[in-house]
């Protein structure tokens, strides 16, 4: 079991975002966490990372409870939703800095080449376009060799070529036996890469299973429609 979540509750002020989420994530699969805006996807991910502190419930990552710990994050590569970096530093320096902070072996050269980032290495991050920043973000995430990868909206701003590379990267990491969590609103992308779907609705897990099971339950033939129909279909 890579991640084990037990009765996770979180509220921000009066707004109850997670209402007792139970979830176990197995090793070596690609999980897509889906749900409408504000359903608690990012909060769930940030709880796993320890950025959000839950009100109730336990989370353990790779067999260790995460409460007050920080060393377990060495085993997680995380791609944040909005790639905003310190504006004053250069791409090369940012990469060097994250390497320095993590102190683990990394393979950034290949990734930089893959996404064609060489011309930008000596540019300051403030001058980069949104898509280029996202590519830097992806390089920063994939350059380490961690057993767990969490991607929050990885497709934002990417051009088709970069998107293909991203999908290849995800499949390659899966082949290496890694566990991957993804959130996305691009259903086509989810359909292509995900093995399992976790559907969050109003702070609870509404559906968990593979795409085939989802189609069956909702009696739809199209994945996008199946997701849209998930809340109206009657199922056990």
């Amino acid at each position, binding site marked *: 079991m890579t991640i084990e979540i037990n009765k996770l509750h979180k509220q921000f002020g009066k707004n109850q975002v997670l209402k007792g989420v139970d979830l176990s994530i197995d090793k070596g699969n690609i999980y897509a966490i889906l749900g409408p805006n504000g359903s608690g996807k990012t909060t769930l991910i940030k709880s796993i990372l320890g950025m959000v502190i839950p009100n109730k419930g336990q989370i353990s990552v790779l067999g260790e409870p995460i409460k007050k710990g*920080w060393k377990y994050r060495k085993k997680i590569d995380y791609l944040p939703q909005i790639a905003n970096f310190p504006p*004053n530093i250069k791409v090369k320096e940012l990469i060097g800095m994250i390497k320095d902070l993590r102190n683990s072996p990394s393979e950034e050269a290949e990734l930089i080449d893959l996404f064609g980032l060489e011309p930008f290495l000596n540019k300051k991050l403030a001058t980069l376009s949104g898509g280029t920043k996202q590519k830097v973000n992806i390089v920063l995430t994939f350059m380490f060799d961690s057993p767990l990868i969490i991607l929050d909206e990885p497709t934002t701003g990417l051009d088709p070529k970069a998107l293909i590379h991203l999908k290849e990267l995800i499949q390659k990491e899966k082949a290496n036996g890694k566990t991957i969590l993804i959130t996305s609103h691009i259903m086509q992308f989810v359909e292509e890469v995900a093995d399992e779907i976790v559907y969050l609705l109003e702070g609870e897990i509404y559906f968990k299973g593979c795409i085939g099971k989802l189609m069956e339950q909702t009696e739809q033939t199209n994945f996008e429609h199946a997701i849209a129909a998930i809340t109206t279909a009657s199922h056990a």
Partner: protein
Amino acid sequence: MLKILKYSFYDLIRSRWSYVYFLFYLALGFVLLFLNNDVSKAVITLMNVIIVLIPLIGTIFGVMYYYNSREFTELLLAQPIKRSSIFLGQYFGVAGSLTLSLVLGLGIPFVLYGLLRSNAIFDFSLLLVTGAFLTFIFVGLSFVIAISNENKIKGFGYAVLLWLFLAVVYDGLFLMSLIVFEEYPLDTFSLVATILNPIDLSRILILLKLDISALLGYTGAIFKQFFGTNLGFLISLAILLLWTILPLLGLRYKAGKKDF
């Protein structure tokens, strides 16, 4: 923590504002020396400027840096780094780079003018030390305010209000209470009230070391009795240290509980 400190520090000393701050002190130092033509007098004028300015700049820089580096902080939070190390590293980065601007900006003109050969060197060092303390205190306070307020405008507002209170309003209340209660013995009260405000404490500390306490009359004599002794001096430094540590404890506490 040291790595975070290093990066925050580099990030800041390369930003335009650090240079502006540095050049401002450089210019201030040269102009004062040119106008006063005397190191000791320049130190006094300088004190009046920096005792108010340093807290203001520390407050504004602290709040600004915290809010500007929010996304970067989030990036760091996902890395295998202890939470408190991130914030303490950033804090020391900001306070350290501001202190460096202060020390270099004022140090260069004074050294060039011949500070090392004059007998004002102790006064001048004291000025820089209290300046450094004030920087650390107010950057710390502003970090605590910023981390407690998600809303930038509110955070800025509270931070500036805090500065205004400690730098201006506090003195006003202090003087008013002296007038209202003038029939009572106020020695201890005024001493304690001075110690409780880091800006006042720094001011008195410098004034008394500058040997112009005679200008302060009777009150001056009492203050001299307290601050003039080594014990008083040490107590004052200890209180400045306490003022530095308290916001840091608050920062650690807040950082441990906050959601990002």
